[in-house]
């Protein structure tokens, strides 16, 4: 199981939880598991999120491995200038 931290705006879509436990060994599996567990998160994730794994910002790479004890945060989409 991996603990995923949600930004406060998403908590309302995940029964008010700040941290959500889901099954998954890669970023992609974790995102899919989040949507399966809390369909309300689907539009936010579809719109594009970045995932931070132990401080590394993963913008759109679904295959990055995630250790069970890794620190995982969902972050709003990044921009570029």
């Amino acid at each position, binding site marked *: 199981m991996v603990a995923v931290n949600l*930004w*406060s705006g998403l908590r309302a879509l995940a029964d008010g939880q700040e941290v959500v436990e889901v099954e998954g060994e890669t970023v992609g599996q974790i995102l899919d598991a989040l949507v399966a567990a809390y369909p309300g998160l689907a539009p936010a994730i579809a719109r594009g999120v970045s995932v931070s794994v132990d401080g590394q910002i993963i913008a759109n790479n679904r295959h990055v491995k995630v250790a069970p004890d890794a620190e995982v945060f969902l972050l709003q989409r990044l921009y570029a200038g």
Partner: protein
Amino acid sequence: MALDSDTQKFKYIGTRPDRPDGLDKVTGRARFGADFSMPGMLHGAILRSPHAHAKIVKIDTTRALALKGVKSVVTRADFPTGLTGEDWNIQENVMAGEKALYDGHAVAAVAATSALIARDALKLIDVTYEVLPHVTDVDKAMAEGAPVIREGAADYSVPEGLHPNIVRYMDSGRGDLEAGFAAADLVLEESYKTEAAHQGYIEPHACVGQLGADGKGELWCCTQGHWFVRQMCTAVLGLEATQLRVTPSEIGGGFGGKTTVFIDPVALALSRKANRPVKIVMSRSEVLRATGPTSSASMDIKMGMTKEGKITAASGTFRMQGGAFPGAPVDVTTMLAFANYDIEHVHHIGYDVMTNRPKQAAYRAPGAPMGAFAVESMLDELCRQLGLDPIDTRLKNAVKEGTRATFGPKFPPVGLIETLEAAKAHPHYATPLGPNQGRGVASGYWMNWGGETSASVAVGEDGTVQVSIGTPDIGGSRASMALMAAEAFGVPYENVRVNIADTGTLGINEPTHGSRATFASGLATVEAAKEAIGKLCKRAADKWGIDADAVTWEDGFAKPSGPNAGEYPPLSIAEIAAEMGSTGGPISGHFESSPDGFGGSFGTHIVDLEVDPETGRSTILRYLVVQDAGKAIHPAYVEGQFQGGAVQGIGWALNEEYIYGEDGCLQNPIFLDYRVPVASDLPMIDTVIVEVANPGHPYGVRGVGETGITPPLPAVANAVRDAIGVRMTQLPLTPPRVLTAIKGRG
């Protein structure tokens, strides 16, 4: 991708060679967007709405079509329907549908045998408008009764009951704000405003488009990212992605504003109808009215600090308008506003609001400068009222590796502390100030991601190396790529030729934006080089009849890796290349991925300025940029990013703004009144490059392109506060506003 080694000794990296494209650029031979022509080419011109908000009742193009020399006319009717999401937004912005949404919105376009005929033809297009009420201010656009830009545009994030112009809502943070503020000795609350600014690139958008009825097209244009252009044009025109080949010209500045499309789909649509290539070049007033300035912002900040200078709590509400479309970078503003500092109790609220203004586009660290102006101004005020040194206070709160960021995750290695210490130690900080003079300090951060990257290298028959990358070279990155390839191959810098490949010859690449080019394309070049080097070693091994693993590559030579591998004279890249045709074929290397491990870059700026107390005009006396580059590949161009970013920030702080009249039209659409800094406005911009290596890149590279624009907004404001004794909270700090503040001092 662990860093190859911290104390790497580089042969080429870190040197300052002449850039490979320098000769063309100083002789006028370099071909920018508008310098390109084609046989049989027509000239296009775009008719733009004179109204800020109007229903388009009818467009009659008969008179225009009748004008001799006119070959085709397009309106929205010539574009496919059924698009959704951002594709629809881009199509709607490229050519208005039912409504003209802002002053300058494209309504129709003409292609003719000369630019003058095309311009004359525009006057013959009769558009019937039904003018609607408009709104251009972000706070007014959210208020009760404000004109609605587009019904039903709000997404899942927007709570019920808010004005339809509010299309996205953000809420993030942690801890207990009340407890945090209670623990503070001083709590301040203040509202801040910044106006929209334009990237101000000197080259207006230009392209030549050729599209056939067979759906096959060619596009030559100035752009920061031709794969983005391909995706957007094919979506807007209903084409298959790879049937359009986009070739980037030299680009005359972009700063984020050329990562999208405005005229390219129009040129292609005109070309398809006329069956001839069509060239469109924007005028400066079209660029300012109808391309993508950044958002304006209205912000409320509250921060608490102990008398020792510890920030105990911070909260911010950020209202930003991104024009008549969703997309104001307010999510980044909420992420980075307090990100410099280790704050336990923090909360951000963000509103993305629509107004009757052009669709915003990215502008160098999009979203960061606005938040920094507010937060670093308030931090300066807290320090002033508590009698604390601004740099020491920032040092006391500065984030470092392992600090939990205000936006959630722990920080990887970063260099904020190093920049603060270097700034404090710099002679500038100790220089005495005269009357009416003031000093301001501020820090800023930018981070990003690697993004889709494809690169390839190929060994020439004479052993020289050709590198093909997909990130257009705006600021000298071809030199950096050549340095990294030279380092990897161990061949002289002069033996490397770097080309910006078109979309037909490389895999997908994200644009040169997000300070990613040197990081991502650089990394891809090094990885592609490793693949080619592997093949070069294999050819040597075959020649010597030993195993490939027993061969290493050093300074451009294949060598037996150890005594037991056998005694063979080293083989140079030239020797291997000379016979590669008969030893297995051409040798090249490729690398495609979306690399992560991007290193964010912190910067700290100090500015001294003098305010004329009788007129309110500010004169910059000294300016210092200290920024963490991780590893400066070509130091001169790293300094150039520091200096260019700082001067854009100075312009944004002092004189640049979008001025809309009561009629909702832009009043200053030319460089006479859109006042970018000129040479005589500025002193030399001093720079210090700090190098805290980024473990995510083989040479430690961090993206340096964007951080530089963020600190100047608050630093200049803090310096004006220091000089006149009054805190000003709205940019730009124009002389009339500063004089009013001085006179209000009483």
